[in-house]
């Protein structure tokens, strides 16, 4: 049986072209210049110091005391790491959102930089600063620039803190270990540079997706674990004077044990919601619907480094304008970041007057401070700086102040020792308080007042002495105030007398006609 003429005719071009294409591709593959080897051996970083020795298995610990790891064990060539500005070519919205975030300036923020320097000044090995930079500057870490003798050239990608590639190449995270226990496959980002770019990338983005959206990375980015790797901080003898582990940040565990963690509400669902405040309000009503769109603003509690009221000082404090951004876009994204941050903070807490009764000595007031919207303790984070306090003012019928607690902090720009404050103190080896976040000198961390767990409350009691003849009705004004850092930190580390404004999380106003007539 003979072949149909059409098959006879077309078999030849089909076979010949197929074989020719295969041969051509094979020839091209054999002769084309091979892409450069990805990764830099530790031994190739000149003057790179390993002052803390190997681990228990005898392996080098290039990033110690940070628990940051490189997926391959190799470091990266800074010239080949993509800057977030490169990502902006196709992802402008994500880039612009991120540029307003605190992640973008994690390694540029002047207060942070000054605090790292203050810490390094008190230790023999400046490389101990790697403990901080593991989370704040992963690109600098993984290129070997965090070293007392810097031999690695700078690059835009190294100035961007928690940049696009920091999350989009993550392959593993240990949120219980914390201290930057995240593994990054920066090699993927380097190799991707040799693949299709521009139009070819857009026509077939599989190599790009394999580099920045690999299944392991995508799964990791959807959960709280990747956040927990850096938002968990435990001091031990590796980086401090603490003889026993001191939990400094426990945000991940706080979330894990909360109603939010139990119901699968991840960090991303609030902090990366397109409208974080609205999302929190929905959650407060029990609606677990995740946000329709995620944003890269990572809205959090830092209301100072988003405060556009600071004018040009904000640009200085944020370490200048990011690569790929111009002044106008920077201003616009900061305005939106500030708006969302303020709105977000206002969803976190509430105040409720539980009791106000006359006693022999005067007036007894119980005020419940409620954690209504935070999926973790309130406050959380590094709470030797991030703290909140209650300001309570009782006035008589004429408006005269009969009692005030916690007012000095806001008015005088200094801590009010008499205020009811949710704050932890860092203590040095002599038990003296460290006020400017000197990690390496800290021996113990103690809470002055324990933070309020998610959906929990802390009832604060005030006994107000009342003089005879007080004319009622009495009036109570209470405000729950939050401050991102102590003014002393700025003064001592940055050597500047900058005010650190507080933000009002919740307010209470009540008249008590039945207490004093």
């Amino acid at each position, binding site marked *: *049986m003979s072949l149909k003429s059409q098959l006879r005719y077309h078999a030849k071009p*089909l076979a010949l072209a197929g074989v020719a294409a295969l041969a051509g591709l094979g020839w091209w593959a054999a002769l084309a210049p091979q892409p450069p080897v990805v990764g830099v051996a530790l031994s190739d970083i000149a003057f790179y110091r390993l002052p803390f020795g190997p681990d228990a298995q005898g392996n080098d610990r290039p990033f110690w005391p940070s628990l940051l790891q490189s997926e391959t064990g190799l470091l990266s060539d800074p010239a080949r790491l993509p800057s977030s500005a490169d990502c902006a*070519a196709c992802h402008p919205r994500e880039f612009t959102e991120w540029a307003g975030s605190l992640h973008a300036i994690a390694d540029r923020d002047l207060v942070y930089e000054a605090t790292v320097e203050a810490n390094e000044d008190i230790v023999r090995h400046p490389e101990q600063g790697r403990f901080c930079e593991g989370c704040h500057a992963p690109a600098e870490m993984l290129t070997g620039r965090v070293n007392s003798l810097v031999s690695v050239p700078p690059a835009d990608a190294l100035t961007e803190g928690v940049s696009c590639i920091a999350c989009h190449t993550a392959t593993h995270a240990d949120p219980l270990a914390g201290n930057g226990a995240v593994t990054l496959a920066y090699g993927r980002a380097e190799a991707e540079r040799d693949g*299709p770019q521009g139009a*070819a990338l857009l026509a077939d983005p599989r190599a790009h997706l394999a580099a920045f959206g690999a299944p392991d990375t995508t799964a990791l980015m959807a959960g709280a674990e990747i956040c927990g790797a850096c938002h968990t901080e435990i001091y031990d003898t590796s980086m401090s004077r603490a003889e026993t582990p001191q939990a400094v940040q426990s945000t991940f565990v706080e979330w894990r044990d909360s109603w939010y963690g139990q119901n699968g509400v991840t960090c991303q669902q609030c902090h990366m919601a397109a409208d974080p405040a609205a999302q929190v309000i929905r959650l407060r009503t029990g609606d677990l619907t995740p946000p329709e769109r995620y944003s890269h603003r990572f809205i959090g509690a830092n209301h100072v480094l988003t405060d556009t009221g600071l004018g040009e000082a904000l640009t200085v404090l944020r370490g200048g304008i990011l690569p790929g951004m111009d002044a106008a876009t920077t201003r616009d994204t900061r305005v939106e970041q500030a708006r969302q941050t303020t709105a977000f903070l206002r969803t976190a807490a509430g105040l409720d007057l539980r009791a106000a009764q006359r006693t022999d000595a005067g007036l007894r007031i119980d005020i419940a401070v409620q954690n209504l919207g935070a999926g973790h303790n309130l406050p959380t984070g590094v709470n030797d700086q991030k703290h909140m306090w209650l300001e309570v003012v009782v006035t008589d019928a004429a408006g005269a102040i009969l009692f005030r607690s916690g007012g000095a902090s806001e008015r005088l720009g200094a801590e009010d020792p008499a205020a009811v404050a949710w704050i932890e103190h860092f203590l040095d080896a002599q038990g003296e308080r460290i006020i400017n976040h000197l990690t390496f000198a800290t021996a113990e961390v103690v809470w002055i007042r324990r933070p309020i767990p998610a959906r929990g409350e802390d009832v604060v009691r005030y006994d107000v002495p009342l003089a005879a003849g007080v004319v009622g009705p009495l009036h109570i004004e209470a405000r729950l105030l939050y401050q991102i850092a102590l003014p002393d930190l700025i003064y001592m580390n940055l050597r500047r007398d900058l005010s650190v404004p507080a933000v009002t999380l919740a307010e209470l106003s009540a008249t008590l006609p039945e207490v004093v007539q």
Partner: protein
Amino acid sequence: MNEPVLRPPALGFPQTAVLSHHSGGSLRSGIHSALISALFVSGLWLWLWPEASLVMWLHLTAGLVLAAALGPWLLRHLPPGLAHSQRHLFTRISWALLASWVALIGSGLVMALPGLLWLAGLVWFPPREITEALSLLHFWASWLAMAGLVLHLALRHWAWSAV
């Protein structure tokens, strides 16, 4: 079984038409076949090694050329082809082949669109899920299109009873 195979009578199309029964094909359709084969091989290569930038460009260019050439050719091939198909099976397979080609070329064009827009100075691309679905569709449609083409070329479209 030893009877001589009877061929259908010559169709009344000029030799330049898209049904060239006597020779089995035209120069143009032969070039189409060569392009299809080269695209299939380069596509497989890209599936395995998507980072091959040069291969991507060649595949994209050849794909656009084929899409531009095949459309008009198919429009002219279909009406006489349908008219002269004497077997339901052949007709159905041909429609399935056409569907796979539409899926193949359509998905390829949509995949190429973001790249072409980039060259025009515009940035647009579909969501990742769509991109991945298009990629899968393009891949499997290529197998169907290739197998269907060989089947289309090999199967007789005439019915013995009608000869």
